[in-house]
């Protein structure tokens, strides 16, 4: 498989999953505002922070704007300069899809293309104005449909594996970020049990994990059980453990023998170490401990993605850089030490936040 195409397959998967996660997060946060007795400002601010958009956002609109739901949503949905807005993710996904047009199935391509044209037309703006819920739902549905079509209409070989590795590793970051919203919300508000339950429920919904969680825990909601579910559960397809384990398996499909030194070994080794590291952890309920664990996972995942980028270029001669990409980093909370992350330089281009 051609290196350049492989790189775009990987990134296509990442952009699609990123768009889906972002749409879901926006949708759920809107509901949280109605469900919980939390000041509106405290609902939206964490979303800006965990998305990594905070520095540019506050510089442009001021810190107060982080509590303005309309401004946050508009920035996270439409802003072309925001590297993680829905608009940017869909556009980038479609650009990659055009490059890998000869490996994508017609059905998957058509769906991406329609989503892109819809987002860029008047229809989407109209729906956004008049029925916000419907808007996010539509974006989510379209991205989910694309990923479903990928699995059901493409050959299950290297291109799809790379694409799916992208989905899984992006999802690690998205779930970790979603989970990390919690301390932001809690830090300024006197923790009230009802409020806390509302937040945890919202968090589960933001990860599409509400029903799955309830099945496993019969309604016993606590910080401990929810965090544990989203981090460690081996059967929930958005948990950190599931995504890491799945990505590890996929790397051996792409590079058979990646367990041993040779092609694919570098990212495999790092991913394997991270998965084993996670297996030795237990969730303590303190927000600080969870935050540290999540930060480590996001950092390591960014390194693993860069390593995959280098591996994709293949053993010999260097390839030309296809251009910068957007790596979404884990940003820190106000009371935690800042960790610069996600600025790994892959062989096929510098990816910065």
């Amino acid at each position, binding site marked *: *498989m*051609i*290196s*350049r*195409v*492989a790189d775009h397959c990987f990134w296509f998967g990442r952009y699609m999953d990123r768009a889906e996660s972002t749409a879901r997060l926006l949708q759920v946060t809107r509901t949280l505002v109605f469900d919980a007795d939390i000041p509106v400002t405290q609902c939206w601010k964490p979303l800006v922070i965990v998305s990594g958009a905070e520095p540019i956002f506050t510089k442009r609109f001021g810190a107060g704007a982080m509590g303005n739901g309309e401004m946050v949503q508009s920035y996270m949905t439409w802003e072309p300069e925001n590297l993680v807005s829905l608009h940017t993710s869909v556009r980038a996904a479609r*650009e990659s899809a*055009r*490059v890998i*047009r*000869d490996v994508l199935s*017609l059905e998957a*391509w*058509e769906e991406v*293309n*329609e989503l892109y*044209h819809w987002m860029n037309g008047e229809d989407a703006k109209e729906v956004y104005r008049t029925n916000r819920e419907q808007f996010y739902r539509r974006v989510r549905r379209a991205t989910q449909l694309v990923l479903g079509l990928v699995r059901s209409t493409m050959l299950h070989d*290297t291109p799809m594996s790379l694409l799916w590795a992208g989905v899984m590793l992006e999802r690690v970051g998205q779930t970790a970020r979603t989970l990390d919203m919690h301390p932001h919300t809690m830090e300024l508000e006197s923790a009230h049990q009802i409020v806390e339950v509302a937040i945890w429920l919202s968090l589960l919904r933001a990860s599409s994990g509400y029903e799955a969680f309830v099945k496993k825990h019969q309604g016993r909601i606590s910080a401990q059980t929810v965090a544990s579910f989203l981090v460690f559960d081996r059967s929930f397809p958005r948990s950190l453990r599931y995504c890491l384990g799945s990505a590890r398996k996929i790397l051996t499909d*792409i*590079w058979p023998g990646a367990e041993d030194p040779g*092609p694919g070994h570098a990212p495999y080794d790092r991913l394997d170490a991270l998965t084993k590291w996670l297996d030795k952890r237990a969730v303590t309920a303190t927000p600080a401990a969870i935050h540290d664990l999540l930060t480590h996972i996001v950092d390591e995942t960014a390194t693993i993605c860069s390593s995959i980028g280098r*591996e*994709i*270029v*293949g*053993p*010999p*001669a260097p*390839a*030309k850089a296809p251009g910068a990409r957007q790596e979404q980093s884990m940003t820190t909370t106000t009371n935690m030490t800042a960790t610069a992350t996600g600025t790994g330089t892959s062989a096929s281009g510098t990816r910065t936040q």
Partner: protein
Amino acid sequence: MIDVDGTPRSHSRRATRILDGLTPKEFAKAQSLAELSLYSQGVTFSVYSDQRGTEKIFPICLVPRVISGAEWSRVEKGLAQRIAALNLFLDDMYGEQTVLKAKNIPADLILGAKFFLPKLRGIRPPGKVRIPIAGIDLIRSPDGVFRVLEDNLRTPSGVSYVVENRLVTKRIFQSAIEESAVRPVEQYPMHLAETLRAISPVDPADTRIVLLTPGSFNSAYFEHTFLARTMGVELVEPSDLFVEDDIVYVRTIRGPERVHVVYRRIDDAYLDPEFFRPDSLLGVPGLMRAYAAGNVALANAPGNGVADDKAVYPFVPDLIKHYLGEEAILAQVDTFVCARPNDLTYVVENLAKLVVKAVDEAGGYGMLMGPQASVAERDDFRRRILAEPRRYIAQHRVELSTCPTWDPAAEKLAPRRVDLRPFILTQQSGSWVLPGGLTRVALVEGSYVVNSSQGGGSKDTWVQKDTSS
């Protein structure tokens, strides 16, 4: 399709009857659904002049153009003959150059062709065939005869629309297609892959074919992805390839792998900076060395531009006679060659009657439509022609035939001018002509310009089975 008295010609009667069953409203609806589906599928081209990279569909008119089987048989033979002669001409130009001694053919004119590459003399392409893929533009003149307007022997494009248009019309006019005994076009990619394998320097079964595209910003990018997908070959950009010891490799995630055949959709000048332009960063350095060493086949062969030069065009019937000893089966348009003193005098004195074309431009650019041009425009062109006669040819304006075409504003059918680009795939054993080809239509009333870049559209072309033989 329609006779002078307004009745459908016998062969297209069935097709027109099907259309009769639709009300204008129904037709308009089918028309917009078809366009929407092309847009969703990304069957588009990018507009060069538009900086934002706008994509447009190549507008399709659902009313098909019908060509009878008997008529097509003649066209097929004529095209095969023309390609055979032009292949021999290219072999000769990059070999012995015997043609330069022939009586009727002016040597200086041929040697002066812009796309002639003397550096390639003596290099025999690995697969022998220099024009595996050709697109020859035909028009039908008022006498009802198909004439060659232009040869495209470098990187002819448009075949993807032929196949896509058929998919669209098939959904809407399935029974009409069956009843009219329309020959299929979907097999083109299979024939193309076979044609490309046939020029491989190694065993066809072990051949790795790639399609080389300039990239996703190219206006024909959709077609590149279409052909790669439907042939099942990889779509590569120049930076994906490299050459070592005169062998071409593609960079893969498991290391370099050898490439045997490159179907390149990149102009000669951007193939290899080592060979063509050292200042360029584009292309694959060393590709021409690998080609000269016989280690990689290029389709089409570099240097083919000498054979589709507009100044060489007037002499193609002479070339057919010279190489094959036959009379040309297909007529062409009478042409004045400004490099010839007598022709030049006639052209500059009769600009108001003539269509003048720069020999090194394509896509409808560098043209003067004498009858419609202003006096100032004609004066300007006259100066340019006198300054560089070699750059220009002229023809009397040929009345293009028309086809009933949907006019969305008036919501009815109206006559619009059309041309036709059939595609010809050639192996050493002979040529295969895609039954159909791209019918381009000037959508604007009164217009003669069918180019997609300048307001043209397309139609599905229905070639019927030949029942005469």
